[in-house]
């Protein structure tokens, strides 16, 4: 496993360099190695069956140590962010059967499952107890062993797991290194996105394997712009990895510029549409930095395209391209039958690459619908994935034009609208629910929901909205709760008897 091999080398050659800075705490490469060895030793001794490890938390220092420890013990980790409500976390516990759950906030996840749960203190004690113990590299993940399983929004209302194995990640890293100056040197990467979302994989797998320092920007910081700018100002970040949304939040402050962050030389964006507006602002504020746009679904290991945005692309009236395929990747724009369409025509994007996952965790039914196998030029079997993204190609560049189904991206989060709907319908007095994305240009600005009730509640509209939002917190993470909720006596239906989304969307755009 390339990351573990690199970390082993760093622990000897640059032991005192910081691997991670979180809230002023500095985790050196030596300590990351030692603590992950201790966790791996514990796993190998107490949980010899290589079931995954579930880690519930946010940006705790030991979160990273547990992730690396799991890899050393030859098993996958399942990172779950604290924004997930208990109900949803329990569904993941039930589906994934982890051998152990690390619960940093102590929220009681998996308490009734019979699975051992380690709180932050118990974990710290255990890492002390196993300190100095070492595991053999024979127990490390390798080949087709899954490294992580990310649970993402599923259209049935239950999250689905995407396992990514060692070979997927090796291929991903080899494809992306040329964009990251692949020489060992001191440099700081942002570590902003929750480990439960795969944009974080860029910093963890690329950054750490190159001996870089990850600078954590926890969620609480985004609530205080003055503190966020002050933190960025002393972070020394050179390589910025985030969703466009996080950068959009930062540019609302006039302080966010090349003077605040003089070392910043690269922005790498992933996870959602990069707008012209953001590109123009960043080019003005950070004239020396290059902007790289990338694209990829979790199912194909973070990203499969990348391109530096040139002045021509910024000036072009077409949308910002999602990039050209990375060296090993084949991208095809296809019709419904899978036949490749000519240049310039819109169709569904299919990805063929060694970065494509084996399929959804224990869901062969879902896997069969969107994953496929094909032969490469040498006659070797490679996996493919139907993205559901509508795209077209011009030359080597690909352009995104929206979804072919009800999946959306909001502030970088991938959301199935049907997932929101089926969870809203779990609320006691809710009869039917329809979720509608509201666009601001090419991006989703927010989600609105229309709801019909079983019994009229006689409340004024704002009170109704607040009551449903409060109840929704039991089933949905906050980023999936619609900003606007409108209660209607009846929801309009179209001739097929399905909710008339067009009519509802028109109602929202009416002034």
């Amino acid at each position, binding site marked *: 496993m390339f990351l573990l091999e690199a970390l082993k080398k760093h622990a000897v050659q640059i032991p005192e360099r910081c691997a991670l800075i979180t809230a002023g705490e500095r985790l050196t490469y030596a300590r990351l190695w030692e603590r992950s060895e201790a966790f791996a030793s514990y796993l190998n001794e107490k949980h010899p069956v290589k079931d995954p490890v579930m880690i519930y938390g946010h940006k705790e220092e030991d979160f990273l140590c547990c992730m690396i420890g799991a890899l050393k013990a030859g098993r996958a980790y399942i990172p779950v962010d604290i924004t997930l409500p208990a109900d949803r976390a329990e569904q993941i516990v039930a589906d994934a059967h982890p051998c152990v759950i690390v619960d940093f906030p102590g929220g009681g996840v998996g308490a009734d499952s019979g699975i051992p749960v380690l709180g932050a203190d118990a974990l710290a004690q255990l890492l002390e107890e196993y300190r100095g113990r070492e595991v053999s590299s024979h127990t490390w993940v390798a080949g087709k062993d899954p490294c992580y399983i990310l649970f993402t929004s599923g259209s049935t209302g239950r999250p689905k797991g995407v396992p990514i194995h060692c070979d997927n990640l090796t291929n991903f890293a080899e494809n992306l290194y040329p964009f990251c100056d692949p020489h060992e040197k001191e440099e700081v990467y942002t570590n902003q996105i929750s480990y439960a979302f795969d944009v974080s994989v860029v910093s963890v797998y690329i950054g750490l394997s190159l001996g870089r320092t990850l600078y954590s920007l926890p969620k609480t910081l985004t609530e*205080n712009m003055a503190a966020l700018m002050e933190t960025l100002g002393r972070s020394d970040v050179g390589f910025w990895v985030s969703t466009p949304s996080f950068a959009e*939040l930062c540019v*609302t*402050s006039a302080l966010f510029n090349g003077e605040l962050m003089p070392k910043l030389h690269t922005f790498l964006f992933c996870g959602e549409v990069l707008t012209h507006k953001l590109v123009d602002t960043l080019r003005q504020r950070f004239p020396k930095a290059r902007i790289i746009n990338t694209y990829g679904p979790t199912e194909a290991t973070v990203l499969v395209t990348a391109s530096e945005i040139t002045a021509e692309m910024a000036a072009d009236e077409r949308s910002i391209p999602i990039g050209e395929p990375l060296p090993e990747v084949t991208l095809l724009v296809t019709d419904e039958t899978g036949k490749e369409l000519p240049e310039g025509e819109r169709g569904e994007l299919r990805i063929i690459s060694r970065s494509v996952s084996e399929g959804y965790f224990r869901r062969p039914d879902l896997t069969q619908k969107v994953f496929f196998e094909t032969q490469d030029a040498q006659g070797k079997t490679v996996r493919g994935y139907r993205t559901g993204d509508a795209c077209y190609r011009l030359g080597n560049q690909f352009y995104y034009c929206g979804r072919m189904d009800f999946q959306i991206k909001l502030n970088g989060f991938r959301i199935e609208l049907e997932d929101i709907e089926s969870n809203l319908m779990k609320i006691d007095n809710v009869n039917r629910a329809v979720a509608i994305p509201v666009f601001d240009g090419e991006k989703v*600005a927010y989600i609105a929901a229309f709801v019909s009730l079983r019994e009229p509640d006689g409340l004024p*509209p*704002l009170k109704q909205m607040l009551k449903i939002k409060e109840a929704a917190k039991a089933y949905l993470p906050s980023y999936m709760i*619609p*900003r*606007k909720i409108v209660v209607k006596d009846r929801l309009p239906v179209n001739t097929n008897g399905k909710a008339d989304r067009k009519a509802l969307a028109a109602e929202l755009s009416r002034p």
Partner: protein
Amino acid sequence: MEETVMNVLAEAIGTEADQLDADLELFEEELLDSFGVISLLVGIEDALGVRIEPTEITREEISTPAKLIACVQARM
């Protein structure tokens, strides 16, 4: 001015201006989050030409519609 601010706020929250009490707790009731604040500030700048630097205010200073209006007034 007050009416404009209330309309922008209602839009950022996803409701109508007549639903908003002057003392409604916007953050406690989880009506606004980080992205909601940004669309609010951008909306105010677009509608009134008043720019509020996000680093110059705390959540406490705009935690109710009444406080928000005072905050805009002070910058006009």
